[in-house]
């Protein structure tokens, strides 16, 4: 019986490792390709590790593009859209969780349904508005758009966390004379800090990886790392190794952030999933 349980555990462990390796393999392959020459990158059979590793691709990428400008734009846009999103979403989620009305659920579903619309459907109107308001290729413009795009997810996540908080705690605070501001700042936010942290992380990752709006609404000044990667694809010519180097540089910051915060991220995403 004990043996069977142990074997089962080992089996699950092996399966988990296999799935993890499968998911990590493309990233591994990209990183390895970034250290190959262009000829080695396309040679068949391909080599799992570079036979003659080179930093040439990274040198070229740094020479040809201002990586740090793109990276800075990504940081500003992802953090900015997340913070702006929280400012709107915390009060919205608070209202929906603690003083729900009969329209709360339809409103939540409607908010989520906006994510089902293909973004290209609203590209032209948004482009025209941006043109008229002088927001094309500005960090502010892209930050606002990404905030709006991710707002339904932020509201939903926060709503789920807030609903888990017993109303009695907030009521006690109110009975002790706490105002709305104090109730939110001193009671609600500290209790749901874990949930807010994972919401922030997820939103930063989504904003960091977003490419549709970044490519369409920016050209040079506000272009983030997704535009930086796009500039290394080529219609005529082999740029796999350089493209891999650019992609590695683009995902490195968010990969490291995800690595260090994976506990919070997993906890936050599974919060409330099991009761």
């Amino acid at each position, binding site marked *: 019986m004990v043996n069977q349980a142990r074997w089962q555990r080992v089996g699950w462990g092996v399966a988990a490792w296999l799935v993890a390796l499968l998911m990590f393999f493309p990233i591994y392959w990209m990183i390895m390709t970034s250290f190959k*020459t*262009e*000829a080695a990158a*396309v*040679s*068949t059979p391909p080599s799992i590790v570079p036979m003659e590793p080179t930093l040439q691709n990274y040198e070229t990428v740094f*020479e*040809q*593009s201002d990586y740090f400008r793109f990276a800075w734009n990504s940081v500003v846009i992802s953090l900015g859209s997340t913070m702006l999103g929280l400012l709107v979403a915390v009060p919205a989620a608070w209202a929906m969780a603690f003083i729900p009305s009969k329209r709360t659920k339809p409103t939540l579903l409607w908010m989520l349904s906006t994510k089902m619309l293909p973004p290209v459907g609203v*590209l*032209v109107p948004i*482009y*025209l508005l941006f*043109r008229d308001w002088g927001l*094309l*290729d500005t960090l502010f413009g892209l930050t606002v758009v990404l905030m709006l795009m991710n707002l339904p997810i932020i509201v939903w996540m926060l709503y789920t966390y807030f609903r888990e908080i017993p109303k009695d705690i907030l009521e006690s605070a109110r009975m002790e004379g706490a105002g709305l501001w104090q109730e939110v700042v001193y009671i609600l936010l500290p209790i749901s800090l874990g949930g807010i942290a994972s919401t922030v992380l997820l939103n930063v990752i989504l904003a960091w990886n977003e490419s549709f709006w970044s*490519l*369409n609404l920016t*050209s*040079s000044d506000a*272009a983030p790392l997704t*535009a930086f990667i*796009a*500039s*290394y*694809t*080529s*219609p*005529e*010519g*082999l*740029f*796999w190794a350089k493209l891999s180097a650019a992609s590695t540089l683009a995902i490195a910051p968010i990969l490291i952030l995800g690595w260090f915060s994976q506990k919070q991220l997993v906890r936050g995403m599974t919060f409330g999933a099991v009761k």
Partner: protein
Amino acid sequence: MSYGKRLAGVAALALGLGVGATAQAVEITIATVNNADMIRMKNLSDQFEKKYADIELDWVVLNENTLRQRVTQDIATGGGQFDVMMIGTYEVPIWAEKGWLNELDFSDSYDVGDLLDPIRKGLSYEGDMYAAPFYGESTMTMYRQDLFDEAGLSMPANPTWGDIYERAQQLHKPDDDQFGVCLRGKPGWGQNAALVSTMVNSFGGRWFDMDWQPQLDTAAWHHAVSFYVDLLGNYGPPGASSNGFNENLSLFSGGKCAMWVDATVAAGMVTDPESSQVADEVAFAQAPHAVTEKGSKWLWSWALGIPSSTQKPEAAQKFVAWATSKEYTRLVAQKEGWRNAPPGTRKSLYQNPKYQKAAPFADKVLDAIQAARPQDSTLKESPYVGVQFVGISEFQGIGTSVGQQLAAALSGSKSVEQVLKSAQRSTKRTMKRSGYYDN
């Protein structure tokens, strides 16, 4: 006045002058695709900024499809985000007709007469130039001389598709990872549809008759597409329906293809020892033909155009003139060797003995470009301009849809008969919706 105050005054004056100087500099934004020639231009552009100290360049490098979509969107809505843009032979006449591009006006020293005629005409609308060619290309046959020698074969200078078929049969050795021929199979108007268009032309077919009725269910299309599917399906690499220019380039450069018919711009890449394992073994011939040579070689040029929405037309014109000038060609040669000079645009380059020596494929490229006739590319009369495309705005959609059908035939999921019937129907529907006819 105290020393401190005087110093502050001088600093303020200097700052004011600095601000004044910055305010005078005009910044132009250039949108371009990413390939070796364009990257070279970007790297050498500091020479332009030295020459024109009052102009600063800002670059936006995008992939081809995104660039096309961004630029179209920007011009159509008057966004004015770009001052110079890299566009192709397909877009120029269509956009010029819509008034989206500024007409170009060059000084005598630019020497418009030195531009290759087919390229210049391809970038003109009603006789006026609306884009300046940065590089030009046609199609050619690249083949492995060593494999031909081993098999005791030779390649005619001007082969037919039959010649290619016979040689592909003999050189196809999949067990040794060697495939008879590599051709574009990836769906797309600029991918498989481009190559098949040239094949259809040379098999005597055309996309439309003089009444704009699609001709995809005619015998010429059947012969051409059946031949293409048979040749590439039986003697090409596995998964050929996913291979575009870059995939075939890596296959050929890695020594997997005995022959490759594609853009002449590939010649410089497959003979570059830094990226090709077969650099010393490659030989060249003209692109194959069938019943006619008409339309068997395509014509394409990546060119610099100025959108009518630009606020800085003078600075943009100066940059376009510089980047497509003889002076720029000499600059590339001086910095990176004659072999890397942008090909396919100027007669003087092909007359230059240094270039001829550095690029042994030069005469074949010139012959192919000179032979291309976008205004007369089909055996039977047709109402459109273009060899591997039809110069109407509907063609992007039509070409891509037909390209998807061709890929289905190549992968074996549909018969040639089925795909051509379906392509005929969908093309007719598109043309009808666009108002070319009522029934």
